[in-house]
């Protein structure tokens, strides 16, 4: 009898509940993300998709349920959690580059201070990453001197410098001017193609269709529907997802 290879899911959420005061933002969420899988989370604003993304590295603590990352339950706030976060990259809507540091120093900070990498190594690797996201020529600039798209690519490079096993994207293109959305999506698409495990909260339906292995649709704190992109977009099962898509895609 052959035993099937069962790999530990990179993310495993079971019965996750969260409230903001009276607002029930996450209602018994169950979600698995396999290694190398790209899961795109979509849904109307206020549906809890951003919160879901932020609970995975415990930027938002949860009220009930369990979250495991690579088999390990999320630890309490402290050094162990910091260690786990070092392995989980996160890209924010508002970039959040460190304003007092050059782009290069932004990318090098965590490898130097968290991983204790030698400076020359960190610098070489940071330059390689900046090259990869196409902004090596901006290495010595400060974040405010870059366009939004360049800042977000720098932020992606900053996360990648930690060699994360999982990347979380919390609406990475929502704060960008339309002409800059694509340069960021291209970087993300190439990451996905390289086999990075990704959870992406976005409104970019084109990206979901192109790069996702699975689309998760959320509404009112619940996962309403999940399916591979072709199935989700072309044979939407739930009424709520259909009405959301018709609103989004009508324009």
């Amino acid at each position, binding site marked *: 009898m052959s035993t099937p290879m069962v790999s530990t899911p990179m993310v495993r959420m079971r019965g996750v509940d969260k409230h903001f005061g009276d607002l029930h933002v996450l209602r018994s969420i169950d979600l698995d993300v396999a290694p190398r899988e790209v899961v795109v989370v979509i849904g109307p604003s206020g549906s809890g998709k951003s919160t879901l993304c932020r609970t995975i590295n415990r930027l938002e603590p949860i009220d009930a349920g369990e979250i495991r990352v690579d088999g390990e339950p999320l630890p309490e706030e402290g050094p162990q959690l910091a260690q786990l976060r070092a392995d989980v990259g*996160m890209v*924010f809507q508002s970039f959040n580059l460190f304003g*007092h540091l050059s782009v290069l120093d932004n990318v090098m900070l965590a490898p130097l*201070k968290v991983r204790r990498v030698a400076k020359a190594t960190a610098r070489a690797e940071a330059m390689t990453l900046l090259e990869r996201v196409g902004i090596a020529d901006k290495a010595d600039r400060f974040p405010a001197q870059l366009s939004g798209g360049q800042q977000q690519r720098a932020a992606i490079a900053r996360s990648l410098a*930690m060699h994360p096993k999982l990347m979380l994207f919390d609406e990475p293109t929502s704060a960008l001017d339309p002409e800059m959305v694509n340069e960021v999506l291209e970087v993300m698409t190439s990451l996905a193609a390289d086999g990075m495990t990704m959870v992406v909260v976005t409104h970019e339906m084109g990206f979901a269709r192109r790069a996702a292995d699975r689309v998760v649709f959320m509404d009112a704190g619940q996962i309403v529907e999940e399916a591979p992109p072709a199935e989700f977009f072309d044979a939407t099962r739930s009424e709520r997802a259909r009405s959301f898509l018709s609103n989004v895609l009508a324009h």
Partner: protein
Amino acid sequence: MTAVIENLDPLLRALGTTALILVVSAAGSLVLGVLVTVARVSPIPVLRGAAWAYVQVFVNIPLLALLLLAVFALPDAGLLMPLLTTVIVVLVVYEAAYVAEAVRSGINTVAPGQVEAARALGLRLSQTLRYVVVPQAVRAVVQPLGNVMIALLMNTALAATVGVVELTSAVNKVNLVEAQPIPIFTAAGLTYMALALAIGLGAGRIEKKVAIHR
């Protein structure tokens, strides 16, 4: 003016003492003030409370009272320090409360996203404060810190009341002999003014250099 020129030697020595008090107290209060601020934003309630109390105590007690208390009470408590050291310690402790207030207002200018990004990268709380929050907070309050340092300069004159021969004490002594209060005290006043201007201009320069463009 001859009164000043004839006594230039002791006056310059006294000015040196003023500069020494200023520089050492400035460095000390900046370091202590930042530490108090860090305690004030730390997640440990006892530390937060202590830092809050620290600031309240030293902002609300007149420096002169503190100085007299230290000069007379510390030896009583068995802690015997040279007068100059006592004055510097008191100034450090006192001005640190004002530095802490300034830096705390700077911390409020650091966007929460900066802290989130640092935490998401795996930086521990102490590293987040040290490499991300404090550097940005201090950059935002260079000018207010310059003003605290100018106030510190003026406060060094209180050392005269407890017997340290710094600039104010020295000009007072010269005046007792020469009885020419107007030129003597004008010269002292102009000297303080020049120092204060230098601090202000220096702060302006530093601010321009380290400002975070947003």
